[in-house]
């Protein structure tokens, strides 16, 4: 018997008992729907996590913290993720950075130096001050390849030009104002909204955000060494410029000009948020000027940043760097632990879905058993006329499989609609933008993260699974049909 004939017969049989077919298919639709929806909620959690991390920083950046602890400049790496497990043999120098760059899948790598606290002043009569300004330095040649982005301005072009973090200007205090009222409210540390009572206790919300005191792009900043405190090693001639009445900038510090604002990205160092970023060479010159006591040799890299081409290879590159003897950290660690946590939730959700599909499978088995019972005569006739046992079995399996495929496809379509509805409800209404976020998933930031995400493979899996379950539940009845004796066909009506 040809396959096309089997399909044709199957179609006729399914159509002959329309209501029963529809009900059985409905069972599969519900089962398939619940599996897809549940798993989509699980992958929604994944997407929300991912977007949360992405808003925190570039996920493809690996921070390499070396073991070179000679200099007094040594500081914890960005985000304080320094790790003590590295071996002492590897030295984080230009050669090491070059080695990183030559690794497969590495897009860029740069050395990184943090000058943890410099005294920064700006404005008329150095009115605006920041006693603990972070200065970071990278190899500016790698700036673009590392994925640094500017929110305004341009890259440093002339001598004395540097970049500032997105919110650096908010770190300056107005020395003419009273303590407690001398900072402007920055957008990154306000609450979503505050009640009047909370406001009285110091809560500030979005409506309180103000512009910084001065435009950092047009105001020159004076850099000086931080006032000596615990270290006691600053035996330099530089005068600490912390007080409001220190007018002269020429002798005690170096003037720099901010040419652009960096986009905040925790993966690439604190300077992208609050601080200054400049070329390594420039930092060395600067430090030599403002703090001659510090030896330039001690300005070794405190860390290196390595950017991997895509997130899938981060683990790979990271382990290679580790085998070279360095300590590394990346947001992948966080992603992994988050994934671990969501996995159990996803399993529970998937389990609930699977139960529904098992119920559907019982429905299919029931339908097929009934179908065999009421077609005993037909099966007998077919056998008497020379239909092989193979074909009888195939007939019933094709029927069961068809119910599974149809139910699976309809179930997937319905789940797509359900998923869309869930997401639109979460966005709070239908609009072109919301539809784009929900369907294409191209939104960025927490706001556009979807609750329900259906990856393409989930559709394929759901249809395949529904079909498989149908075939399995159709197998018993099909074998029962095979055992129907041809004789019954003749006897049954005599």
């Amino acid at each position, binding site marked *: *018997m*040809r*396959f*096309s*004939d*089997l399909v*044709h017969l199957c179609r*006729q*049989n399914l159509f*002959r008992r329309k209501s029963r077919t529809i009900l059985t298919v409905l069972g599969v639709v519900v089962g398939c729907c619940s599996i897809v929806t549940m798993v989509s909620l699980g992958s929604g959690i994944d997407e929300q996590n991912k977007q949360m991390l992405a808003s925190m920083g570039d996920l493809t950046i690996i921070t390499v913290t070396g073991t070179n602890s000679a200099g007094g400049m040594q500081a914890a790496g960005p985000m304080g993720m320094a790790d003590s497990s590295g071996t002492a043999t590897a030295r984080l120098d230009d050669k090491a950075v070059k080695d990183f760059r030559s690794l497969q899948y590495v897009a860029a790598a740069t050395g990184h130096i943090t000058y943890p606290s410099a005294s920064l002043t700006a404005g008329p009569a150095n009115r605006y001050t920041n006693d603990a300004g972070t200065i970071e330095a990278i190899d500016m040649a790698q700036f673009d390849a590392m994925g640094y982005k500017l929110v305004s301005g341009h890259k440093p072009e002339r001598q004395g030009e540097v970049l500032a973090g997105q919110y650096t200007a908010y770190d300056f205090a107005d020395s003419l104002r009273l303590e407690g009222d001398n900072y402007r409210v920055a957008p990154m540390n306000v609450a979503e909204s505050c009640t009047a009572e909370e406001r009285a206790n110091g809560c500030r919300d979005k409506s309180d955000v103000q512009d910084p005191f001065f435009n950092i792009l047009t105001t020159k900043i004076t850099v000086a060494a931080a006032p000596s405190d615990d270290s006691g090693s600053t035996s330099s001639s530089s005068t600490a410029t912390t007080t409001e009445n220190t007018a002269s900038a020429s002798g005690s510090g170096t003037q720099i000009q901010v040419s652009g604002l960096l986009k905040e990205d925790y993966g690439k160092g604190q300077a992208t948020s609050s601080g200054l970023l400049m070329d390594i060479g420039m930092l060395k010159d600067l430090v030599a000027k403002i703090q001659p006591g510090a030896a330039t040799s001690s300005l070794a890299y405190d860390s290196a940043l390595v950017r991997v081409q895509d997130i899938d290879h981060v683990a790979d590159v990271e382990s290679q760097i580790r085998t070279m003897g360095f300590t590394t950290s990346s947001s992948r660690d966080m992603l992994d632990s988050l994934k671990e946590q969501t996995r159990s939730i996803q399993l529970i959700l998937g389990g609930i879905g699977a139960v529904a599909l098992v119920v559907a499978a019982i429905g299919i088995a029931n339908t097929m058993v009934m179908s065999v019972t009421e077609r005993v*005569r*037909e099966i007998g*006739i*077919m*056998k*008497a*006329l*020379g*239909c*092989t*046992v*193979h*074909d009888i*079995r*195939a007939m019933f*399996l*094709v029927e069961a499989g068809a119910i599974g495929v149809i139910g699976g496809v309809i179930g997937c379509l319905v789940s797509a609609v359900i998923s869309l509805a869930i997401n639109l409800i979460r966005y709070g209404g239908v609009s072109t933008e919301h539809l784009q976020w929900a369907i294409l998933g191209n939104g960025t930031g927490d706001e556009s993260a979807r609750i329900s995400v259906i990856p393409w493979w989930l559709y394929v899996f759901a249809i395949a699974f529904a079909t498989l379950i149908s075939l399995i539940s159709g197998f018993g009845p099909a074998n029962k049909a095979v055992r129907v*004796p*041809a*004789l019954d*066909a*003749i006897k049954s*009506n*005599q």
Partner: protein
Amino acid sequence: MAWLASPPPTANMDASIAPDASGVLATPAPRPARHNGTHPASGRPMIEVRNLRKEYVMGAEHVIALDRINLGIARGQICCIYGESGSGKSTLLNQLAGMERPTRGGVRIGGIVVSRLDERELAEFRQKHIGFVFQSYNLLPGLNAVENVAMPLMFRGVPREEREARARAMLRRVGLGKRLNHYPSQMSGGQQQRVGIARAFVTRPQVVFADEPTGNLDSKTKVDIMDMIRDFARENGQTIVLVTHDEHMAAYADRIVTLLDGRIVHDTEQDE
């Protein structure tokens, strides 16, 4: 998905033609000359039955439905198996067509030992060599006349257009040219049986078994149906085994084998 594929042609079928080891069929039993059964035109009978016995176990009892049946039916012969109900004639038909396995003895059709074939070989054997006409027509209710007639060809894997063309031609020959697309429920008993006959003969089988083909019909239709079966058989030299308890129908046969209590009590050949 091997189960979807048609089974490969079986090699066993040919192997089963080889002399069988048990000797049941190898040594011809002595037969009375008058019902030799061998048609003058062909050397060997189309259907050979040797020493057939069939027992049924019903509860604690053994019922002997058939015993010591020896029979040879020549190619092209119309043979009537005649008997009252309960005489074992339907049981004999089932043994001949390979629907049931005999308790003892063997059946050979066209050189193939039917009683030795397994399930799959039997199905193929029926596809190729056997046609059936049933008392209760046994058409599939979900298929129309053309599809019902084309069904045995479908099992053989004949493409749709070809088999439906053959089915239509066959239906026109039995006088149902205007009811090609009717479903069984839309046809009278006589019409349904004509569809049944078309279905039995569409594959040009060597042997057609007819089990009380006119049992449910009125007397005028009976004659039409029997004429039709006989004409088809004569045209292609096909062997017909007709099971009936109706003496009028027996008159159509070349030969009448009478069964009583599971044994052959009469065997007469008659001229038309």
